[in-house]
């Protein structure tokens, strides 16, 4: 067994790391960045004074959090028209080709549909992370700031947000770790991530367990290292006060 694991690793490590891991990481990073941006907007919408705006954000968050991720992947994969992706993101593909990438248009569109689904999913969770990070800031901070004559906006940006960020950033890091694991679901659509590479290697070698153990080890090292980095970072943020 151990022997075959070593063989799998020496034979396919380039494919696991160069393709699988690279795609898993880029997909996760894209998701967490855009998920955070859209999640921030959603969090602001949910704290908005205008009622319908709050409703829209709440409905979005409820629907996304109340349905399975795999279902959402299927939904967006089949729902988003190719032409839509190409109109909006065709330039990204052209840029990639320009820089020597050999990704076909079809694979690119597939990847983008999955990325959009993951981003939409993540934004709903992240918005709650951001909202609770903001609400965790002591109300006395707002009151002190307002009592000094600062406006609501000044109070939010100068007093509340800087403190909320210290709650939010580590939570976003943890979200990144979650997404790394969640992207494995996208292998259902063969987008070339770690789990997709596993399926390829399994097909080639007719071995089930050994490549699975290799992939598990890669995920484990990745999430372990990231979690520890985040924890160290969190301690540093806390110490700053």
């Amino acid at each position, binding site marked *: 067994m151990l022997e075959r694991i070593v063989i799998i690793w020496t034979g396919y490590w380039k494919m696991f790391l160069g393709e699988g891991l690279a795609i898993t990481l880029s997909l996760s990073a894209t998701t967490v960045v855009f998920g955070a941006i859209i999640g921030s907007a959603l969090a602001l919408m949910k704290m908005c004074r205008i009622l319908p705006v709050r409703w829209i954000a709440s409905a979005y968050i409820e629907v996304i959090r109340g349905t399975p991720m795999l279902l959402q992947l299927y939904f967006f994969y089949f729902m988003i028209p190719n032409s839509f992706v190409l109109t909006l993101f065709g330039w990204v593909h052209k840029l990639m080709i320009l820089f020597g990438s050999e990704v076909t248009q079809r694979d690119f569109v597939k990847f983008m549909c999955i990325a959009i689904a993951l981003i939409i999913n993540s934004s709903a969770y992240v918005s709650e992370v951001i909202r609770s990070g903001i609400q965790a800031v002591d109300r006395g*901070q707002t009151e002190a700031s*307002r009592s000094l*004559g600062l406006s609501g906006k000044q109070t939010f940006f*100068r007093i509340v947000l800087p*403190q909320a960020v210290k709650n939010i950033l580590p939570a976003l890091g943890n979200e990144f770790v979650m997404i790394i694991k969640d992207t494995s679901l996208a292998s259902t659509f063969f987008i070339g991530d770690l789990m997709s590479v596993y399926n390829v290697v399994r097909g080639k070698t007719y071995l089930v367990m050994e490549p699975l153990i290799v992939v598990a080890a890669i995920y484990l090292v990745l999430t372990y290292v990231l979690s520890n980095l985040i924890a160290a970072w969190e301690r540093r943020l806390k110490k700053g*006060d």
Partner: protein
Amino acid sequence: MTDKTPVEYIIETVDLHKSFGNLHVLKGVSERVRPGEVVSIIGPSGGGKSTFLRCLNLLEIPERGHIFIHGVDITKKGVDVNLHRRKMGMVFQLFNVFPHLTVEQNITLAPVLTKKSTEKEAKEAARALLSRVGLYDKLNEKPGRLSGGQKQRLAIVRALAMEPEVMLFDEPTSALDPEMVGEVLDVIRELVHGGMTTVIVTHEMGFAKEVSNRVLFMDDGVIAEEGTPDQIFNNPRNPRTREFLSKVLQ
């Protein structure tokens, strides 16, 4: 109700009412504070003291009644609440210093953001204020490293940096360890002797007696009794005042 009142009063409230849901907390508070006056508010917990104080700078919005500051009704629509609040310093029981800013930044933030002072002026003022309360050497520290008494002194000078006309204190020493109460009261005492108009909610009866021109006994949402410190502490007329004092003074 007329708009203007004689401006010999810096604060005047007229029939102030405030409820939280079904809980009627202020049941018609009418009170006046003259410039330079020091008014203490005492009374049992839950009587509405904090709520009254917080109404004065509209941290709570009263649903009925009026608040005149220098004769201007600030409960009216269209009043710039922020401008008004800049003239009133407020000190809270739990300090509420800004943990992400240094001691100096805690003080300079508001004067600079409200364009009251330039950055340079604000820093000079902050340093002078910090020296005054013995915190100059903490200038660049984060408040997390300060003791409770130091935090509260910082909170006081942070408010003073806006050069307010009135200072509102809501139990400024209640959250402190006993050995730190004195240092904070010293700062307030000095302020009061400097002529600052002050409204202070406190359980420090000795201090209230010493510094106040007037003492209000607040109970169940109304000012149940008011008078000079001598009247309230040595000769209370309302049985509830007597009961309260006998409990806290024993």
